[in-house]
């Protein structure tokens, strides 16, 4: 295959991974408009950082930026957080604000298959860090090492998050059988 045009390096690195970027943003934000905002912002950041990109894995690099951008919006203030005006989430495995209301998402109206909808709801209800690990592994089919790189997490943590995510899925699926 011909080499990319000399001025097209950014495009060559980033464009093949736009679907992956969207899939991650969409699952982290659980809302199509919010995902689009994240991607717009992430692309601006990617353009800015690209001259310094020396890595060999543009997919991990781009997904890392998408992930950081999404976290910046979801958790603007890590640590002691501002109390939201709505009910504060209970401390627990699945916080209240992690539960998605599928009816609120117009895209869900298009999802007619019951199984698909059920699977969608089960993943959407997972806590953010677990959902992220699961989406990168099961939908993006990335190896642990790359998930660790994208999420700035040791591989051992990736493994335990994946395990917890899968356990929650199994348990939830058992509680509400198809």
């Amino acid at each position, binding site marked *: *295959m*011909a*080499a*990319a*045009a*000399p*001025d*097209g390096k*950014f*495009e*060559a690195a*980033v*464009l*093949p991974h*736009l*679907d992956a*970027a*969207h*899939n991650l943003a*969409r*699952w982290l934000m659980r809302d*199509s408009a919010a*995902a*689009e905002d994240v*991607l*717009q912002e992430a*692309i*601006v950041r990617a*353009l800015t950082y690209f001259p310094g990109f020396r890595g060999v894995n543009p997919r991990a690099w781009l997904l890392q930026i998408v992930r950081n951008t999404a976290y910046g919006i979801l958790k603007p203030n890590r640590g002691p957080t501002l109390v939201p005006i709505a009910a504060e989430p209970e401390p627990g495995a699945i916080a209240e604000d992690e539960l998605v209301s599928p009816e609120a998402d117009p895209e869900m109206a298009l999802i007619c*298959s019951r*199984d*698909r909808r*059920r*699977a*969608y709801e*089960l*993943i959407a209800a997972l806590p953010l860090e677990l959902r992220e690990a*699961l989406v990168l*592994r*099961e*939908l993006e089919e990335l*190896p*642990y090492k790359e998930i660790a790189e994208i999420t700035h997490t040791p591989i051992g943590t990736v*493994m*335990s998050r*994946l*395990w917890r995510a*899968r*356990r929650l*899925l*199994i*348990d939830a*699926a058992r509680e509400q059988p198809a």
Partner: protein
Amino acid sequence: MTGEHCDKVLLVQAEFDGEIDAAQAAELAAHRAGCPVCRAAAAELAQTRELLRGADLYQPMPDAVRGTILSRIAATRPAPPARRRWFAGWRQGWIGFGLGAACAAGLAFLLLAPSQQPLVEELVASHIRALQPGHLEDVVSTDRHTVKPWFDGRLDFAPPVKDLAAAGFPLKGGRLDYVDGRPVAALVYQRDKHLIDLFVWPESSRLAGAPREATESGYNVVHWSADGMTLWAVSDLEAGQLADFARDWRQKP
């Protein structure tokens, strides 16, 4: 959850995810023979994967979002100066040539200037990329009245879409692509088993340009301009037939 636990479940999971080596796998197999927790875990892992992968949950980027993103990238990138200069020079040269060249153009194909090489490479790379499964068309239709409106709102120009089925080049569909620092229309035509990508985007000059041709990585490329658009046909079709395609396209009203 069963409530029972085993320290090796993460290893079971790693095996399931294809992340352990043969030695670890052998050790795990020996352990699992005597551990009901790990055997149950392996079954549950398979169950989660079935639940997820069977449900078509992947969320690829919608076309509208892709269009916005591509425009945003394009906006930060001025067209490369070298190529611009060449275009300018070509236009001046064209005027110098006079209309005599226009008559000759229908018969003789000129060779592309070497400075067009990066663009030719980029177009061929786009064509090859598009041949990957599922990447060829965003809109699949043999009807130009379906393909043309599909581009509305996805591009800031309306690409010409012509029906060349009678000439033996049926339309297959179209897609958005990204070439020369901007979003472009790619129309897909077919001749027998060969696919032709026709890349179209506006050109500031309204002069009609004679077809020019090039070869890159075994692919043939023909370039011409018409009605304020620049057009590039890329295919593994034999050069003569691709030239026929260009001629038929230009003659078709």
